[in-house]
């Protein structure tokens, strides 16, 4: 187990290095001159001479060879120093640290909502297989999986904030502010996860051990909850990796719409403002989070199903 984790982490290192090189290359070759932009931003009169631009270029180190820049940046990144933002004159690491909690709060709330909604819905659909609750849930999940997050966000704003006035429209001032963006994030994955759990449960129900449990006198729900759910959970947990990826992506659009002061909003602002150090830092951070999350998801299969744990150990 420990060796498997170590191996996976070691494999992740060259991948993340490649990612950082890719993004560094992209940023360096992007159209537009960051030195000129920065010089203009500093000079409110908007009259920047060539000398000003060159001075700024030297100051932020853009006149050095590409390889030197990359190695310097990487050396800093290893020590947790991701450079200084062009836009905000704070360090990139500091800004990410300041906002990571807001994004995490949103993502965790959404994930909790997904699990809290999808498990009972999937159970209900399997329990009432081919009866009306199953059909209703089927239609709802089809629509839920198809509606774009940015459209859904505005539907939620119109219904719960503008019309009913129950929840705040945007911002992160109150605790209730998290509800609407988290709902906007949760609907799509909930739709898919509940369907997955349903079909997984339907498979498990026909297994011998469920028949044994039923014959011992357990009711349908009791047998499924005690013996079925854990077995049915394996394909669902496999899908959680995709859900977490979808949450990371969804957070970007949803944070912009709800003015949520997290990393997604920062990403879009940095891209629009061509804040190159910030973009590089955010990509490296997102890549690291993604790799670690996928590792955690892979490890969790073993907790649910010992057969997988054995196979993983054999293959390493």
């Amino acid at each position, binding site marked *: 187990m420990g060796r498997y984790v170590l191996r996976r982490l070691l494999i992740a290192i060259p991948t993340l290095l490649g990612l950082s090189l890719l993004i560094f290359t992209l940023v360096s070759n992007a159209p537009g001159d960051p030195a000129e932009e920065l010089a203009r931003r500093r000079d409110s009169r908007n009259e920047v001479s060539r000398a000003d631009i060159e001075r700024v270029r030297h100051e932020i180190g853009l006149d050095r060879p590409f390889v030197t820049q990359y190695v310097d940046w990487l050396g800093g990144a290893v020590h947790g120093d991701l450079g200084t933002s062009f836009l905000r004159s704070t360090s990139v690491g500091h800004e990410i640290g300041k906002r990571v909690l807001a994004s995490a709060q949103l993502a965790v709330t959404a994930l909790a909502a997904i699990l809290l909604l999808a498990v009972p819905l999937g159970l209900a659909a399997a329990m009432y297989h081919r009866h009306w609750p199953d059909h209703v849930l089927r239609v709802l999940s089809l629509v839920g999986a198809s509606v774009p997050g940015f459209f859904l966000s505005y539907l939620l704003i119109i219904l719960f904030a503008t019309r009913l006035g129950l929840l705040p429209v945007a911002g992160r001032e109150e605790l209730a502010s998290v509800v609407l963006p988290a709902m906007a994030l949760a609907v799509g994955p909930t739709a898919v996860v509940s369907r997955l759990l349903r079909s997984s449960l339907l498979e498990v129900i026909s297994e011998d051990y469920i028949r044994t449990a039923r014959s011992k006198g357990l009711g349908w729900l009791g047998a499924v909850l005690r013996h079925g759910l854990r077995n049915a959970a394996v394909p669902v947990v496999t899908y959680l990796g995709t859900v977490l990826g979808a949450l990371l992506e969804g957070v970007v659009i949803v944070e912009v719409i709800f003015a949520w002061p997290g990393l997604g909003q920062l990403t879009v602002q940095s*891209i629009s403002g061509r804040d190159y150090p910030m973009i590089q830092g955010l990509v490296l951070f997102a890549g690291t989070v993604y790799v670690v999350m996928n590792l955690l998801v892979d490890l969790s299969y073993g907790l649910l199903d010992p057969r997988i744990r054995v196979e993983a150990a054999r293959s390493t």
Partner: protein
Amino acid sequence: MSTSGAVLLQAGESFTVTRGKAFRRLVRDRTAVLGLVIIVLVGTACLLAPLLAHHDPIATDFSNRFASPSRSHPLGTDNVGRDVFSRILHGGRLSLGMAVSATAGITIVGLLLGLVAGIYGRLAETVIMRTVDVLLAMPTLILALVIVGLLGQSLRNLVITIILVQWPRYARLVRGMSLRIREQEFVEAARAVGATRFRIMLRHIAPNLVGPVVVFSTIDMGSTLLAVSGLSFLGFGVGPPTPEWGAMLAEARGFIGKAPQLLAFPGLSITLMVLAFNLAGDGLRDLLDPRTVESTPGLERGRLRRRKAPSPAAGAGTSQVTGNVIS
């Protein structure tokens, strides 16, 4: 997830076997047919936009702003008096056009690079597959956002970006399948009569892959449309006044209190098309899934009567395929 290819592999093989019956089974799947009908209807309407919509999609009329639906304007007018019906149809040409061309690009690039990696091996394989690893180490939409942001706002850049971030999944799939096909007898026979590696790749292996890959890219159409309109919504697609569904939705958010219908029409259009692609894609996926081959057509899907315990590979594969619905 290296195991995820396993089920797709089997699926690809069963596709070639059951292709004859495939169409009949698809037609009997009512929801899949519904999806196909919606795609054809909306697609045709968008293609024929200049004939169906009598108003210029970008002609403003300030004396007739926020008009309610009427005979002349079936969906009313927007904040500067442009005909919404016309904008939806013309917008669909761009939105769906981008989704289709991105899908075509992803398929071609993924197929080519996956084949080269699978057939030539060695350095080519190392370079391609390590690039795949790197590109898959990021959530695709975030990477797309960064790339399109750096390339600059335009339709072409948006499509290029989607292709850049999506081909790795296809390349990985194609490489896996071509590794399997490479070991089959007819390839050995071709090698025995002296066919070059290039010829084997093109004439013997590629034709066996095109079918499954095209089907998978069709299944992905819904999520590609979501990605395209999402990036466009964030302002990385077309600029005003060009109509495009994501951009129209972004424009309408300023009038959310005054005219929520302006938000609803492009939003519903995207939802409807993604739904249609998902329905049709679900039908196609069922055709490919070897486990449903035996099941009676027309019965509800998802009722899989497998007696065997799910292997981890099968579980991962299922999730990967289902994942396309929203990711």
